[in-house]
């Protein structure tokens, strides 16, 4: 083991992580114990990723890492070294129209306080990137990985069904 190996460093020594976030190369220096969620928020200022339970239950912190929806509170920032991360800020630039999923969420009143919303939107983005023609049962199963205290989920289910039709996207492999 080389002395440069992260495993043999003192646990608190900061480590520099290089990754791509929302298509831009990014570097951040964090304690090894820092979660990806905290690092995105505190180091890169991407506060759209919200932290609500810090144990992977609620889904509010969901982002895409190399195309997979992951809970950013359960992944250490150092584990994301070399990956491509997409957060809610990366779905549509501020000067662009809303992403079709985001548009469907507002059209169907799929959000109220908006705290769980970014994580949900990222999970739906991952779902619909891989699947076309989802039915309500499948939508409810996927959405049940997220906790929303405001909406009762009905608007969310409607929004996902609608975005499935309106988001013009390549046909995925359906394995999602």
């Amino acid at each position, binding site marked *: 083991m080389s002395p440069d190996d992260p495993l043999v460093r003192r646990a608190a020594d900061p480590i520099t992580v290089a990754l791509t976030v929302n298509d831009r190369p990014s570097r951040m220096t964090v304690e090894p114990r820092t979660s990806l969620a905290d690092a995105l*928020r505190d180091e890169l200022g991407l506060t759209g990723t919200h932290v609500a*339970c810090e144990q992977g239950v609620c889904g509010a912190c969901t982002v895409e890492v190399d195309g997979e929806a992951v809970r950013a509170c359960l992944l250490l920032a150092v584990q994301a070294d070399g990956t491509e991360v997409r957060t*809610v*800020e990366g779905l549509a630039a501020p000067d662009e129209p809303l992403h079709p999923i985001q548009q469907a969420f*507002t059209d169907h009143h799929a959000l109220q*306080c908006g705290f769980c*919303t970014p994580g949900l939107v990222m999970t739906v983005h991952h779902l619909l990137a891989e699947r076309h023609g989802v039915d*309500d049962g499948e939508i409810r199963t996927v959405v049940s990985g997220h906790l929303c205290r405001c909406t009762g*989920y009905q608007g969310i*289910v409607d929004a996902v069904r609608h975005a499935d039709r309106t988001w013009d996207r390549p046909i995925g492999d359906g394995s999602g």
Partner: protein
Amino acid sequence: MIVVRDADANSSLGARLPRFEDGRLLRGRGRFTADTPPPRCLHVAFVRSPHPHALIEDIDVTGARSASGVVSVLTAADLPHASLVDACTVPGLVKTPQPALAGERVRFVGEAVAMVLAESRALAEDAAERVEVRYTALPPVVDPEAALLLPPLDPALSSNEVYRGRRATPGLEAAFAAADHVVSGTFTTGRLTAAPMEGRACSATFDPVADTLTVRCSTQSPHLLQRKIATCLGMDVAAVRVLVDDVGGGFGQKIPASPEEIAVALAARAAGRPVLWVEDRRENLVAGPHGKAQRVELALALDGDGTFRALRCDVLGDAGAYSFNSASALIEAYLAAGLLPGAYRIPETGWQVRSVLTTKVPIAPYRGVGWTSGHTARELLIDRAARLLGRDPVDLRRQNLVRPADLPYTTPTGMTYDSGSHLATLERAAKLVDAANVVPGPTADGRYRGFGISPYVEPSGWGSAGAAESSWSFASHDSVRVEMAASGAVTAVVGTPSQGQGHTTTLAQIVASVLTCDPRRVRVVTGDTAGTPLSTAGTRASRVATVIGGALLHATERLAAKLALVAGHLLDADPADISFRDGRAVAPSGSVGLAEIATAAVVDPAVRAALPEPDLTATAFYDPPATYSNGCVAVVVEVDPGTGRVDVVDAAVVEDCGTVINPMIVDGQTLGAFAQGVGAALYEDAGYGADGSPHATSFTDYLLPTARCLPRIALEHLESPAPHTRGGIKGMGESAMIATPGAVACAVAAAVAPLGITVTHTPIHPHELVATEE
């Protein structure tokens, strides 16, 4: 008058308008308290009691003070301050002052005893583990009945009973004596917690030059918090500024000032650097205030034909460790008793209310407050009566509900239902779930089906009159300001922040309805006590639409009158002949647009010469009369007798909140409250063990409903405009949370009745529904 609403109206009032706030929230550009830490801020980790009840003998902070990144470690001894006290004025309620940090005694697991200020939250948590607190454990007080016999939690009190009151109509006893049937039962509602997705969060910055404190907080009541902080810190109210932007859900939990928020304010003043506290989920579950936790003993007297004659109750409320600030211990038990008759004609009622201290987190408002507990108990009892009398549960309710001819109807508890559609909503809800064809009991596939129906009344739009009808004193002093800029853009400034209710949109719709302009031209500004008119109560009690909405109608009409003066000058018309249409002031001689009027008012010397004060600002104050929403929730459930699993397989909510401002928002409030009601009935439990330890410390213990727990819910809106409030508006945010737990509990009770199982409390746990072999 009941109006069935068409899908969309042309006026901005009643339009299903998507929310203006959605875009930024969907782009991840919301601004929650944790998103804007003050520059150079210190991060807080609280040291919390592991004991339900103990004396604090000693706190040794030396190890923590020397830990990496730590700037300060503070205990009660370091932070002298005035304790938090509830403002409830109900006579006989004992006050239980609560310090920001416990100094001598802890009274629940999770009570804060010290706070670490460090350069990061992680470092603060590291150091918090090194604070050594020596306790002498005292017996926990868990069971509310036993609490009456145990030594008081506060040596200054004579008993753990902080309130006992009773009231009865004169004919109560005679009605029971003459009754053909008396049905009784005791029902309990478990401890719940609001569990907003964003927990509590607060930052504070002290300015030693100006001697002012700026606080940013996830709160429903910025002006209330401002006053509490000023009182506790011995500052002038005007020297405290509270800011609030986005709030990730509140549901009542963020009405009171939290002891932690007072501690943060004290620490910022003591430390000389800004301080930020963002609670984690465990803190929110074990130290954020809880809700419900009532035992309701009921007896209903009926005639032989099923007519309700009298209802009496004995409510025992578990207040937790303190009668919590702002709403007090009575927010549950007292309000449960006040709404005892619900939507029914019951001529005689009587109640006894007791509230006791226990070694648990204090009870604070949670959506539906005490109304949920009383309502759930009453509906379960009515179903029990229906089974006893062999009556259909819908028909027995139909017989006893308030009828259109009874309105306005005054209950024996002193509430006057101003209007409503009590029978019509019952009929529609029953029809939407096809109640007539739901056969209770076993199904072909071995499950047990049951139907529950729960017609409700929600006391709404609390100003002083509405509060008085609930026998409550309530500081509700609400003003608003409406301004028009030279461009014609309108700003509405209000003191009530939104926690997801969409005020930026709905309040703009109200203002736009007067000016006949596009609601997008109206900017709603809130969330800064330095710049918004006073709202002492803040956002709670389903009051914003009624109180703030009414005030905005007043203020905008005053603005419109000023615009008419200017327009009259520009059009050479009598201002009395001016009306507004499509965003223009219209006179017989012609018309002029709002922007043109506004520009003229600001820059045209001729206007100035003709009108001494062409000032386009208007304020208004509004304290509405009492008003009552109503509606009905109906559900069908299926119970698996092998596992006790309950599935809600069909559901409908028919609601009537008078004039609807935005039906999409009403749908959202109804659906969200329905889901919370299902959680209250079947999943959520913030209970304590016999040793006083909390059972729910994470989201794997405190189970919120997910999308898989709910069917598609049918919604309908009937409209009985309030005859006496501005615009006919009533409040509705809590309605479905009042009625849904009762509907679900009644449905489960009906399903398992053939198995000999009775339902007497919520949440209903699966193991209680498993059929056992005799």
